Protein backbone atom coordinates (compact mmCIF):
# COMPACT_ATOMS: atom_id res chain seq x y z
CA UNK A 1 0.00 0.00 0.00
CA UNK A 2 1.07 3.59 -0.51
CA UNK A 3 3.23 5.54 1.89
CA UNK A 4 0.86 8.32 2.89
CA UNK A 5 -1.47 6.41 5.22
CA UNK A 6 -2.72 8.70 7.97
CA UNK A 7 -5.05 6.23 9.70
CA UNK A 8 -5.31 2.49 9.75
CA UNK A 9 -7.40 -0.01 11.70
CA UNK A 10 -6.28 -3.64 11.59
CA UNK A 11 -8.74 -6.48 12.34
CA UNK A 12 -10.65 -4.46 14.89
CA UNK A 13 -13.37 -6.27 16.83
CA UNK A 14 -15.76 -4.85 19.39
CA UNK A 15 -17.93 -6.98 21.64
CA UNK A 16 -20.66 -5.74 23.97
CA UNK A 17 -21.28 -8.72 26.23
CA UNK A 18 -22.43 -11.48 23.89
CA UNK A 19 -23.17 -9.10 21.03
CA UNK A 20 -20.57 -8.72 18.32
CA UNK A 21 -20.71 -5.18 16.94
CA UNK A 22 -17.52 -5.41 14.86
CA UNK A 23 -15.61 -8.50 13.71
CA UNK A 24 -12.09 -8.21 12.27
CA UNK A 25 -12.76 -4.94 10.48
CA UNK A 26 -9.96 -3.32 8.49
CA UNK A 27 -9.92 0.32 7.42
CA UNK A 28 -7.29 2.58 5.94
CA UNK A 29 -7.28 6.25 5.00
CA UNK A 30 -4.76 8.18 2.92
CA UNK A 31 -3.81 11.83 3.18
CA UNK A 32 -6.36 14.05 1.46
CA UNK A 33 -8.64 11.11 0.76
CA UNK A 34 -12.40 11.10 1.27
CA UNK A 35 -13.65 7.67 2.31
CA UNK A 36 -17.34 6.85 2.34
CA UNK A 37 -18.58 4.28 4.81
CA UNK A 38 -21.97 2.75 4.05
CA UNK A 39 -24.07 0.06 5.64
CA UNK A 40 -27.51 -0.67 6.95
CA UNK A 41 -28.60 0.33 10.46
CA UNK A 42 -26.70 -1.82 12.91
CA UNK A 43 -23.97 -2.69 10.41
CA UNK A 44 -21.38 -1.23 12.79
CA UNK A 45 -20.62 2.15 11.17
CA UNK A 46 -21.15 4.23 14.28
CA UNK A 47 -19.33 1.72 16.48
CA UNK A 48 -16.36 1.85 14.11
CA UNK A 49 -16.33 5.68 14.23
CA UNK A 50 -16.46 5.59 18.02
CA UNK A 51 -13.52 3.20 18.10
CA UNK A 52 -11.53 5.47 15.74
CA UNK A 53 -12.29 8.58 17.82
CA UNK A 54 -11.36 6.88 21.09
CA UNK A 55 -14.83 6.87 22.62
CA UNK A 56 -14.81 3.03 22.61
CA UNK A 57 -11.78 0.84 23.18
CA UNK A 58 -11.55 -1.98 20.64
CA UNK A 59 -11.90 -5.47 22.14
CA UNK A 60 -9.35 -6.79 19.65
CA UNK A 61 -7.19 -5.34 16.91
CA UNK A 62 -5.10 -2.20 16.72
CA UNK A 63 -5.11 1.38 15.46
CA UNK A 64 -2.31 3.22 13.67
CA UNK A 65 -2.00 6.97 13.27
CA UNK A 66 0.68 7.96 10.77
CA UNK A 67 1.75 4.30 10.81
CA UNK A 68 2.41 4.38 14.52
CA UNK A 69 0.45 2.07 16.76
CA UNK A 70 -1.61 3.99 19.32
CA UNK A 71 -3.95 3.27 22.21
CA UNK A 72 -6.79 5.76 22.60
CA UNK A 73 -8.27 6.20 26.06
CA UNK A 74 -10.61 9.10 25.27
CA UNK A 75 -11.62 11.43 22.42
CA UNK A 76 -9.02 13.83 23.82
CA UNK A 77 -6.30 11.39 22.78
CA UNK A 78 -7.51 11.20 19.19
CA UNK A 79 -7.91 15.00 19.09
CA UNK A 80 -4.31 15.37 20.14
CA UNK A 81 -3.34 13.11 17.23
CA UNK A 82 -5.27 15.38 14.83
CA UNK A 83 -8.56 13.50 14.54
CA UNK A 84 -11.81 15.41 15.06
CA UNK A 85 -15.38 14.17 15.04
CA UNK A 86 -18.33 16.20 13.73
CA UNK A 87 -21.30 15.05 15.77
CA UNK A 88 -24.65 14.26 14.22
CA UNK A 89 -26.45 16.53 16.71
CA UNK A 90 -23.89 19.25 15.83
CA UNK A 91 -22.92 20.07 19.45
CA UNK A 92 -23.15 23.84 19.04
CA UNK A 93 -24.46 26.42 21.53
CA UNK A 94 -27.10 28.39 19.60
CA UNK A 95 -26.99 31.37 21.95
CA UNK A 96 -23.31 32.01 21.21
CA UNK A 97 -21.79 33.63 18.11
CA UNK A 98 -20.02 31.57 15.43
CA UNK A 99 -16.55 32.47 16.68
CA UNK A 100 -17.34 31.52 20.26
CA UNK A 101 -18.60 28.14 19.09
CA UNK A 102 -15.56 27.43 16.95
CA UNK A 103 -13.22 28.19 19.84
CA UNK A 104 -15.39 26.90 22.70
CA UNK A 105 -13.15 25.32 25.31
CA UNK A 106 -10.02 26.53 23.47
CA UNK A 107 -10.55 30.30 23.57
CA UNK A 108 -7.61 32.54 22.76
CA UNK A 109 -6.72 34.62 25.82
CA UNK A 110 -4.36 37.39 26.78
CA UNK A 111 -2.69 37.93 30.09
CA UNK A 112 -3.34 41.09 32.10
CA UNK A 113 -1.33 40.93 35.29
CA UNK A 114 -2.11 37.58 36.93
CA UNK A 115 -5.42 37.19 35.08
CA UNK A 116 -6.30 35.60 31.75
CA UNK A 117 -8.91 37.48 29.79
CA UNK A 118 -10.61 36.49 26.55
CA UNK A 119 -8.91 37.99 23.52
CA UNK A 120 -12.01 39.02 21.57
CA UNK A 121 -10.03 40.65 18.76
CA UNK A 122 -7.84 37.64 18.17
CA UNK A 123 -10.79 35.24 18.25
CA UNK A 124 -12.63 37.33 15.68
CA UNK A 125 -9.59 37.53 13.44
CA UNK A 126 -8.84 33.79 13.67
CA UNK A 127 -12.50 32.99 13.01
CA UNK A 128 -12.63 35.17 9.90
CA UNK A 129 -9.38 33.70 8.58
CA UNK A 130 -10.56 30.15 9.16
CA UNK A 131 -13.99 30.71 7.60
CA UNK A 132 -12.32 32.33 4.59
CA UNK A 133 -9.93 29.41 4.26
CA UNK A 134 -12.84 26.96 4.15
CA UNK A 135 -14.83 29.35 1.88
CA UNK A 136 -17.72 29.46 4.35
CA UNK A 137 -19.93 32.48 3.75
CA UNK A 138 -21.72 34.05 6.72
CA UNK A 139 -22.79 37.62 7.33
CA UNK A 140 -20.46 38.05 10.27
CA UNK A 141 -18.37 35.97 12.65
CA UNK A 142 -20.40 37.55 15.45
CA UNK A 143 -23.70 36.12 14.20
CA UNK A 144 -25.39 33.83 16.67
CA UNK A 145 -25.56 30.19 15.61
CA UNK A 146 -29.31 30.02 16.29
CA UNK A 147 -29.81 32.57 13.51
CA UNK A 148 -28.11 30.31 10.96
CA UNK A 149 -29.67 27.80 8.58
CA UNK A 150 -29.11 24.07 9.04
CA UNK A 151 -26.43 24.01 6.36
CA UNK A 152 -24.59 26.97 7.85
CA UNK A 153 -24.69 25.29 11.25
CA UNK A 154 -23.21 22.14 9.75
CA UNK A 155 -20.51 24.33 8.20
CA UNK A 156 -19.77 25.91 11.59
CA UNK A 157 -19.57 22.43 13.15
CA UNK A 158 -17.07 21.40 10.48
CA UNK A 159 -15.15 24.67 10.92
CA UNK A 160 -15.02 23.93 14.65
CA UNK A 161 -13.64 20.45 13.98
CA UNK A 162 -10.91 21.77 11.69
CA UNK A 163 -9.94 24.96 13.54
CA UNK A 164 -6.93 23.35 15.18
CA UNK A 165 -5.27 21.83 12.12
CA UNK A 166 -7.12 18.55 12.17
CA UNK A 167 -5.61 16.00 9.75
CA UNK A 168 -8.58 13.63 9.88
CA UNK A 169 -12.26 14.54 10.20
CA UNK A 170 -15.01 11.98 10.86
CA UNK A 171 -18.53 12.99 9.84
CA UNK A 172 -21.61 11.05 10.83
CA UNK A 173 -24.45 11.72 8.36
CA UNK A 174 -23.38 15.34 7.67
CA UNK A 175 -26.32 16.04 5.34
CA UNK A 176 -29.08 14.04 7.03
CA UNK A 177 -30.84 17.00 8.65
CA UNK A 178 -30.43 19.49 5.80
CA UNK A 179 -32.71 21.06 3.23
CA UNK A 180 -31.92 19.90 -0.32
CA UNK A 181 -30.46 23.24 -1.43
CA UNK A 182 -28.02 23.25 1.49
CA UNK A 183 -26.63 19.76 0.93
CA UNK A 184 -24.49 21.00 -1.95
CA UNK A 185 -22.76 23.61 0.20
CA UNK A 186 -21.77 21.05 2.80
CA UNK A 187 -20.49 18.69 0.09
CA UNK A 188 -18.45 21.56 -1.39
CA UNK A 189 -17.01 22.13 2.05
CA UNK A 190 -15.91 18.49 2.25
CA UNK A 191 -14.20 18.82 -1.14
CA UNK A 192 -12.53 21.98 0.15
CA UNK A 193 -11.14 20.08 3.12
CA UNK A 194 -9.76 17.51 0.71
CA UNK A 195 -8.01 20.26 -1.28
CA UNK A 196 -6.45 21.47 1.96
CA UNK A 197 -4.99 18.00 2.49
CA UNK A 198 -7.42 16.92 5.20
CA UNK A 199 -8.57 13.29 5.15
CA UNK A 200 -12.29 12.75 5.67
CA UNK A 201 -14.43 9.75 6.55
CA UNK A 202 -18.10 10.29 5.72
CA UNK A 203 -20.86 8.04 6.93
CA UNK A 204 -23.92 8.53 4.78
CA UNK A 205 -27.08 6.86 3.60
CA UNK A 206 -27.32 9.17 0.62
CA UNK A 207 -25.76 7.80 -2.56
CA UNK A 208 -25.65 11.36 -3.95
CA UNK A 209 -23.31 12.36 -1.13
CA UNK A 210 -21.09 9.33 -1.57
CA UNK A 211 -20.82 9.71 -5.33
CA UNK A 212 -20.17 13.47 -5.15
CA UNK A 213 -17.36 13.65 -2.62
CA UNK A 214 -15.79 10.23 -2.04
CA UNK A 215 -12.69 8.74 -3.59
CA UNK A 216 -13.38 5.31 -2.24
CA UNK A 217 -16.30 3.59 -0.61
CA UNK A 218 -16.40 0.69 1.83
CA UNK A 219 -19.46 -1.22 3.00
CA UNK A 220 -19.98 -2.88 6.34
CA UNK A 221 -22.47 -5.70 6.72
CA UNK A 222 -23.35 -7.22 10.09
CA UNK A 223 -20.15 -5.93 11.66
CA UNK A 224 -17.73 -7.17 8.99
CA UNK A 225 -15.97 -5.75 5.93
CA UNK A 226 -18.32 -6.62 3.09
CA UNK A 227 -17.00 -4.84 0.04
CA UNK A 228 -14.73 -1.96 -0.94
CA UNK A 229 -13.93 -0.16 -4.15
CA UNK A 230 -12.48 2.95 -5.71
CA UNK A 231 -15.47 5.05 -6.59
CA UNK A 232 -14.68 5.03 -10.31
CA UNK A 233 -14.87 1.25 -10.42
CA UNK A 234 -18.35 0.90 -8.98
CA UNK A 235 -21.92 2.13 -9.44
CA UNK A 236 -24.78 3.31 -7.30
CA UNK A 237 -26.72 0.11 -7.84
CA UNK A 238 -23.78 -2.00 -6.80
CA UNK A 239 -23.21 0.02 -3.60
CA UNK A 240 -26.93 -0.14 -2.74
CA UNK A 241 -26.67 -3.90 -3.19
CA UNK A 242 -23.74 -4.01 -0.75
CA UNK A 243 -25.78 -2.20 1.87
CA UNK A 244 -28.42 -4.92 1.58
CA UNK A 245 -25.80 -7.65 1.70
CA UNK A 246 -25.86 -8.59 -2.01
CA UNK A 247 -22.74 -9.13 -4.07
CA UNK A 248 -22.47 -10.40 -7.65
Amino acid at each position, binding site marked *: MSDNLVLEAKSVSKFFGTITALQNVDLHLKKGEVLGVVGDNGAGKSTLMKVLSGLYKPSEGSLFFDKEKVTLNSPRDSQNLGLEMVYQD*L*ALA*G*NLPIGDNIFLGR*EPTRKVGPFNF*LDHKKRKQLTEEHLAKLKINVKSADQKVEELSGGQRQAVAIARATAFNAKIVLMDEPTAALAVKEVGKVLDLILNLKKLGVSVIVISHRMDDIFTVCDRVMALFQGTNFAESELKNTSRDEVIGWIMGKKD
Partner: protein
Amino acid sequence: MDHGEKRLMDKNQETLFVRLIPFFERYGILLLILIMIAVLHLLQPDVFLSWRNVTNIFKQVSWQSMLALGVFMVIVTAGIDLSVGSIIMLSLMGLAIASKAGMPWYVVMLVAPAIGFLCGMFNGIGITLLRMPHPFIMTLGTLYIFRGIGNLISGGVPITGFAEQIRVIGNGKIKLDAFFGEGAREYIPTSLILMIVIFFIFWIFLNHTRIGKWIYAIGGNPGAARAAGINVDRILIVVYTLCGFLAGIGGLILAGRTNSAYPNAGLQSELDAIAAVIIGGASFFGGRGTVLGVFAGVMIMGILRNGLNLMNVSVFWQQVLIGSIIILAVYIDVLRRQLATRT
Protein backbone atom coordinates in the same frame (compact mmCIF):
# COMPACT_ATOMS: atom_id res chain seq x y z
CA MET B 1 -47.65 55.70 -6.74
CA ASP B 2 -47.90 52.29 -8.34
CA HIS B 3 -48.15 49.02 -6.52
CA GLY B 4 -44.53 47.96 -6.86
CA GLU B 5 -43.27 51.28 -5.52
CA LYS B 6 -45.53 51.01 -2.52
CA ARG B 7 -44.29 47.54 -1.73
CA LEU B 8 -40.71 48.75 -1.95
CA MET B 9 -41.50 51.50 0.54
CA ASP B 10 -43.15 49.02 2.92
CA LYS B 11 -40.06 46.94 2.70
CA ASN B 12 -37.83 49.91 3.53
CA GLN B 13 -39.95 50.77 6.53
CA GLU B 14 -39.83 47.19 7.68
CA THR B 15 -36.05 47.05 7.47
CA LEU B 16 -35.83 50.24 9.51
CA PHE B 17 -38.11 48.64 12.11
CA VAL B 18 -36.08 45.45 12.05
CA ARG B 19 -32.92 47.47 12.44
CA LEU B 20 -34.39 49.10 15.53
CA ILE B 21 -35.09 45.74 17.18
CA PRO B 22 -31.54 45.13 18.41
CA PHE B 23 -31.43 48.72 19.65
CA PHE B 24 -34.53 48.15 21.78
CA GLU B 25 -33.26 44.77 22.83
CA ARG B 26 -30.17 46.43 24.22
CA TYR B 27 -31.42 49.77 25.48
CA GLY B 28 -35.20 49.39 25.73
CA ILE B 29 -35.02 48.62 29.40
CA LEU B 30 -32.97 51.74 30.14
CA LEU B 31 -35.59 53.69 28.22
CA LEU B 32 -38.25 52.19 30.49
CA ILE B 33 -36.33 53.37 33.57
CA LEU B 34 -36.06 56.89 32.17
CA ILE B 35 -39.80 56.94 31.50
CA MET B 36 -40.52 55.74 35.04
CA ILE B 37 -38.26 58.42 36.47
CA ALA B 38 -39.90 61.12 34.34
CA VAL B 39 -43.42 60.06 35.33
CA LEU B 40 -42.60 59.83 39.03
CA HIS B 41 -40.84 63.18 38.90
CA LEU B 42 -43.97 64.76 37.42
CA LEU B 43 -46.17 63.13 40.04
CA GLN B 44 -43.88 63.93 42.98
CA PRO B 45 -41.80 66.90 41.83
CA ASP B 46 -40.46 67.86 45.26
CA VAL B 47 -39.70 64.46 46.66
CA PHE B 48 -38.89 61.81 44.08
CA LEU B 49 -35.64 63.19 42.67
CA SER B 50 -34.46 64.66 45.98
CA TRP B 51 -31.01 63.56 47.10
CA ARG B 52 -32.46 61.88 50.13
CA ASN B 53 -34.98 59.80 48.20
CA VAL B 54 -32.56 58.74 45.46
CA THR B 55 -29.95 57.58 47.97
CA ASN B 56 -32.72 55.79 49.80
CA ILE B 57 -33.59 53.81 46.68
CA PHE B 58 -29.96 52.83 46.19
CA LYS B 59 -29.56 51.77 49.82
CA GLN B 60 -32.69 49.66 49.52
CA VAL B 61 -31.69 47.91 46.29
CA SER B 62 -28.05 47.39 47.24
CA TRP B 63 -28.60 44.19 49.21
CA GLN B 64 -31.35 42.95 46.91
CA SER B 65 -29.13 43.48 43.88
CA MET B 66 -26.58 41.03 45.29
CA LEU B 67 -29.23 38.29 45.33
CA ALA B 68 -30.37 39.21 41.82
CA LEU B 69 -26.83 39.12 40.44
CA GLY B 70 -26.20 35.65 41.90
CA VAL B 71 -29.55 34.27 40.78
CA PHE B 72 -28.88 35.76 37.33
CA MET B 73 -25.74 33.67 36.85
CA VAL B 74 -27.64 30.58 37.95
CA ILE B 75 -30.48 31.34 35.53
CA VAL B 76 -27.97 31.80 32.68
CA THR B 77 -27.00 28.14 33.19
CA ALA B 78 -30.73 27.30 32.89
CA GLY B 79 -30.85 26.62 36.63
CA ILE B 80 -32.58 28.28 39.55
CA ASP B 81 -31.66 29.10 43.14
CA LEU B 82 -34.59 29.40 45.53
CA SER B 83 -32.42 29.37 48.64
CA VAL B 84 -30.79 32.83 48.40
CA GLY B 85 -33.35 34.43 50.73
CA SER B 86 -32.54 31.83 53.34
CA ILE B 87 -28.79 32.16 52.73
CA ILE B 88 -29.01 35.90 53.40
CA MET B 89 -30.81 35.18 56.70
CA LEU B 90 -28.41 32.42 57.77
CA SER B 91 -25.34 34.53 56.95
CA LEU B 92 -26.88 37.48 58.81
CA MET B 93 -27.51 35.29 61.88
CA GLY B 94 -23.98 33.86 61.70
CA LEU B 95 -22.59 37.40 61.55
CA ALA B 96 -24.74 38.47 64.54
CA ILE B 97 -23.64 35.51 66.64
CA ALA B 98 -19.98 36.13 65.81
CA SER B 99 -20.49 39.77 66.73
CA LYS B 100 -22.23 38.90 70.01
CA ALA B 101 -19.42 36.49 70.87
CA GLY B 102 -17.11 39.50 70.83
CA MET B 103 -15.06 38.62 67.76
CA PRO B 104 -13.12 41.52 66.20
CA TRP B 105 -15.02 43.39 63.47
CA TYR B 106 -12.83 42.17 60.61
CA VAL B 107 -13.64 38.55 61.51
CA VAL B 108 -17.34 39.37 61.87
CA MET B 109 -17.23 40.98 58.44
CA LEU B 110 -15.89 37.81 56.83
CA VAL B 111 -18.43 35.52 58.48
CA ALA B 112 -21.42 36.45 56.29
CA PRO B 113 -19.73 36.00 52.87
CA ALA B 114 -18.04 32.82 54.13
CA ILE B 115 -21.35 31.29 55.23
CA GLY B 116 -22.91 32.31 51.91
CA PHE B 117 -19.99 30.73 50.06
CA LEU B 118 -20.40 27.42 51.90
CA CYS B 119 -24.19 27.37 51.48
CA GLY B 120 -23.82 27.98 47.74
CA MET B 121 -21.18 25.29 47.43
CA PHE B 122 -23.51 22.90 49.25
CA ASN B 123 -26.21 23.66 46.66
CA GLY B 124 -23.81 23.19 43.78
CA ILE B 125 -22.40 19.92 45.07
CA GLY B 126 -25.91 18.63 45.77
CA ILE B 127 -27.13 19.49 42.27
CA THR B 128 -24.18 17.92 40.47
CA LEU B 129 -22.95 15.04 42.64
CA LEU B 130 -26.33 13.87 43.94
CA ARG B 131 -27.65 14.17 40.37
CA MET B 132 -30.79 16.00 41.43
CA PRO B 133 -33.22 16.05 38.49
CA HIS B 134 -33.52 19.85 38.70
CA PRO B 135 -31.85 22.62 40.77
CA PHE B 136 -35.36 23.69 41.81
CA ILE B 137 -35.60 20.64 44.08
CA MET B 138 -32.18 20.94 45.71
CA THR B 139 -32.56 24.66 46.41
CA LEU B 140 -36.16 24.27 47.55
CA GLY B 141 -34.82 21.84 50.12
CA THR B 142 -32.05 24.19 51.22
CA LEU B 143 -34.53 27.11 51.34
CA TYR B 144 -36.03 25.34 54.35
CA ILE B 145 -32.77 23.92 55.70
CA PHE B 146 -30.79 27.19 55.76
CA ARG B 147 -33.56 29.24 57.38
CA GLY B 148 -34.15 26.45 59.88
CA ILE B 149 -30.46 26.41 60.81
CA GLY B 150 -30.52 30.21 61.10
CA ASN B 151 -33.34 29.99 63.61
CA LEU B 152 -31.69 27.10 65.45
CA ILE B 153 -28.42 28.99 66.03
CA SER B 154 -30.16 32.22 67.01
CA GLY B 155 -33.01 30.71 69.01
CA GLY B 156 -35.45 32.40 66.65
CA VAL B 157 -35.03 35.86 68.19
CA PRO B 158 -33.54 39.04 66.72
CA ILE B 159 -29.97 40.00 67.61
CA THR B 160 -29.13 43.70 67.40
CA GLY B 161 -26.16 46.01 67.67
CA PHE B 162 -23.09 45.64 65.48
CA ALA B 163 -19.70 47.34 65.37
CA GLU B 164 -19.41 50.66 63.57
CA GLN B 165 -17.21 49.09 60.85
CA ILE B 166 -20.03 46.69 59.96
CA ARG B 167 -22.66 49.42 59.95
CA VAL B 168 -20.64 51.53 57.54
CA ILE B 169 -21.06 48.94 54.77
CA GLY B 170 -24.84 49.17 54.67
CA ASN B 171 -25.41 52.60 56.09
CA GLY B 172 -22.21 54.58 55.55
CA LYS B 173 -22.14 57.98 53.89
CA ILE B 174 -19.40 59.40 51.77
CA LYS B 175 -19.70 63.13 52.38
CA LEU B 176 -19.57 65.44 49.44
CA ASP B 177 -18.46 68.57 51.28
CA ALA B 178 -15.88 69.18 48.59
CA PHE B 179 -18.64 69.69 46.03
CA PHE B 180 -21.48 71.10 48.09
CA GLY B 181 -19.65 73.12 50.74
CA GLU B 182 -18.87 72.50 54.40
CA GLY B 183 -21.58 70.60 56.30
CA ALA B 184 -23.62 69.79 53.20
CA ARG B 185 -26.33 67.16 53.47
CA GLU B 186 -25.55 65.53 50.13
CA TYR B 187 -23.68 62.20 50.29
CA ILE B 188 -23.12 58.96 48.41
CA PRO B 189 -24.07 55.73 50.23
CA THR B 190 -21.15 53.31 50.73
CA SER B 191 -23.41 50.46 49.71
CA LEU B 192 -23.94 52.09 46.28
CA ILE B 193 -20.18 52.13 45.67
CA LEU B 194 -19.94 48.51 46.80
CA MET B 195 -22.78 47.53 44.50
CA ILE B 196 -21.22 49.24 41.47
CA VAL B 197 -17.82 47.66 42.13
CA ILE B 198 -19.29 44.17 42.50
CA PHE B 199 -21.45 44.51 39.39
CA PHE B 200 -18.41 45.68 37.45
CA ILE B 201 -16.32 42.73 38.63
CA PHE B 202 -19.03 40.26 37.63
CA TRP B 203 -19.51 41.99 34.30
CA ILE B 204 -15.81 41.39 33.59
CA PHE B 205 -16.12 37.81 34.85
CA LEU B 206 -19.07 36.92 32.63
CA ASN B 207 -17.98 38.74 29.48
CA HIS B 208 -14.21 38.63 29.47
CA THR B 209 -13.14 35.32 31.01
CA ARG B 210 -13.29 31.77 29.72
CA ILE B 211 -15.37 30.55 32.66
CA GLY B 212 -17.87 33.34 31.98
CA LYS B 213 -18.13 32.24 28.36
CA TRP B 214 -18.59 28.63 29.46
CA ILE B 215 -21.43 29.64 31.80
CA TYR B 216 -23.31 31.02 28.78
CA ALA B 217 -22.38 27.96 26.70
CA ILE B 218 -23.78 25.60 29.35
CA GLY B 219 -27.02 27.58 29.33
CA GLY B 220 -27.17 27.39 25.53
CA ASN B 221 -26.38 23.70 25.11
CA PRO B 222 -24.81 21.66 27.92
CA GLY B 223 -24.09 18.85 25.44
CA ALA B 224 -22.02 21.20 23.28
CA ALA B 225 -20.13 22.40 26.35
CA ARG B 226 -19.33 18.80 27.31
CA ALA B 227 -18.26 17.94 23.76
CA ALA B 228 -15.91 20.95 23.90
CA GLY B 229 -14.20 19.38 26.91
CA ILE B 230 -15.72 21.71 29.49
CA ASN B 231 -16.24 20.18 32.92
CA VAL B 232 -19.89 21.20 33.22
CA ASP B 233 -20.36 19.96 36.79
CA ARG B 234 -17.37 21.92 38.02
CA ILE B 235 -18.59 25.13 36.38
CA LEU B 236 -22.05 24.63 37.91
CA ILE B 237 -20.52 24.25 41.37
CA VAL B 238 -18.60 27.50 40.79
CA VAL B 239 -21.82 29.28 39.73
CA TYR B 240 -23.90 28.16 42.71
CA THR B 241 -21.02 28.90 45.08
CA LEU B 242 -20.68 32.43 43.71
CA CYS B 243 -24.45 32.87 43.98
CA GLY B 244 -24.31 31.91 47.66
CA PHE B 245 -21.27 34.13 48.18
CA LEU B 246 -23.16 37.12 46.74
CA ALA B 247 -26.13 36.35 49.00
CA GLY B 248 -23.64 36.41 51.90
CA ILE B 249 -22.44 39.86 50.80
CA GLY B 250 -26.11 40.85 50.68
CA GLY B 251 -26.39 39.67 54.29
CA LEU B 252 -23.42 41.82 55.25
CA ILE B 253 -24.97 44.90 53.62
CA LEU B 254 -28.32 44.18 55.27
CA ALA B 255 -26.59 43.82 58.67
CA GLY B 256 -25.12 47.29 58.28
CA ARG B 257 -28.36 48.78 57.07
CA THR B 258 -30.66 47.42 59.78
CA ASN B 259 -28.12 46.99 62.60
CA SER B 260 -29.89 43.77 63.49
CA ALA B 261 -30.36 40.14 62.50
CA TYR B 262 -33.96 38.99 62.53
CA PRO B 263 -35.72 35.68 61.74
CA ASN B 264 -37.69 37.08 58.80
CA ALA B 265 -34.71 38.69 57.08
CA GLY B 266 -34.74 38.05 53.34
CA LEU B 267 -38.08 36.27 53.47
CA GLN B 268 -39.33 35.84 49.87
CA SER B 269 -36.46 37.96 48.60
CA GLU B 270 -35.46 35.04 46.32
CA LEU B 271 -38.66 35.74 44.40
CA ASP B 272 -37.83 39.45 44.12
CA ALA B 273 -34.41 38.44 42.81
CA ILE B 274 -35.89 36.13 40.18
CA ALA B 275 -38.38 38.86 39.20
CA ALA B 276 -35.61 41.43 38.76
CA VAL B 277 -33.61 39.01 36.59
CA ILE B 278 -36.60 38.23 34.37
CA ILE B 279 -37.63 41.89 34.07
CA GLY B 280 -34.00 42.59 33.16
CA GLY B 281 -34.38 40.45 30.06
CA ALA B 282 -32.67 37.18 30.99
CA SER B 283 -34.19 34.02 29.54
CA PHE B 284 -35.54 31.52 32.03
CA PHE B 285 -34.34 28.78 29.67
CA GLY B 286 -30.73 29.87 30.04
CA GLY B 287 -27.99 31.33 27.89
CA ARG B 288 -29.42 34.82 27.53
CA GLY B 289 -29.19 37.99 29.60
CA THR B 290 -26.72 40.70 30.63
CA VAL B 291 -25.34 42.10 33.87
CA LEU B 292 -26.56 45.55 32.85
CA GLY B 293 -30.03 44.08 32.38
CA VAL B 294 -29.97 42.69 35.92
CA PHE B 295 -28.99 46.10 37.24
CA ALA B 296 -31.86 47.64 35.30
CA GLY B 297 -34.28 44.99 36.55
CA VAL B 298 -33.26 45.66 40.13
CA MET B 299 -33.64 49.40 39.63
CA ILE B 300 -37.10 49.02 38.08
CA MET B 301 -38.28 47.02 41.08
CA GLY B 302 -36.71 49.52 43.48
CA ILE B 303 -38.02 52.65 41.72
CA LEU B 304 -41.49 51.13 41.39
CA ARG B 305 -41.72 50.23 45.10
CA ASN B 306 -40.34 53.59 46.13
CA GLY B 307 -42.63 55.56 43.83
CA LEU B 308 -45.71 53.67 44.94
CA ASN B 309 -44.76 54.20 48.58
CA LEU B 310 -44.34 57.93 47.98
CA MET B 311 -47.83 58.04 46.53
CA ASN B 312 -49.24 56.07 49.44
CA VAL B 313 -50.32 53.17 47.28
CA SER B 314 -51.11 50.17 49.45
CA VAL B 315 -48.68 47.27 49.65
CA PHE B 316 -51.35 45.01 48.22
CA TRP B 317 -51.62 47.07 45.05
CA GLN B 318 -47.84 47.05 44.85
CA GLN B 319 -47.92 43.26 44.74
CA VAL B 320 -50.49 43.29 41.97
CA LEU B 321 -48.45 45.81 39.98
CA ILE B 322 -45.13 44.01 40.31
CA GLY B 323 -46.74 40.74 39.28
CA SER B 324 -48.28 42.43 36.25
CA ILE B 325 -44.95 43.94 35.25
CA ILE B 326 -43.23 40.54 35.33
CA ILE B 327 -45.86 39.09 33.00
CA LEU B 328 -45.81 42.17 30.75
CA ALA B 329 -42.01 42.20 30.52
CA VAL B 330 -41.90 38.57 29.45
CA TYR B 331 -44.79 39.03 27.04
CA ILE B 332 -42.99 41.91 25.33
CA ASP B 333 -40.02 39.58 24.99
CA VAL B 334 -42.23 36.91 23.41
CA LEU B 335 -43.58 39.46 20.90
CA ARG B 336 -40.10 40.70 20.11
CA ARG B 337 -38.90 37.19 19.36
CA GLN B 338 -41.87 36.51 17.13
CA LEU B 339 -41.01 39.63 15.15
CA ALA B 340 -37.37 38.67 14.95
CA THR B 341 -38.06 35.17 13.63
CA ARG B 342 -40.69 36.34 11.13
CA THR B 343 -38.27 38.58 9.27
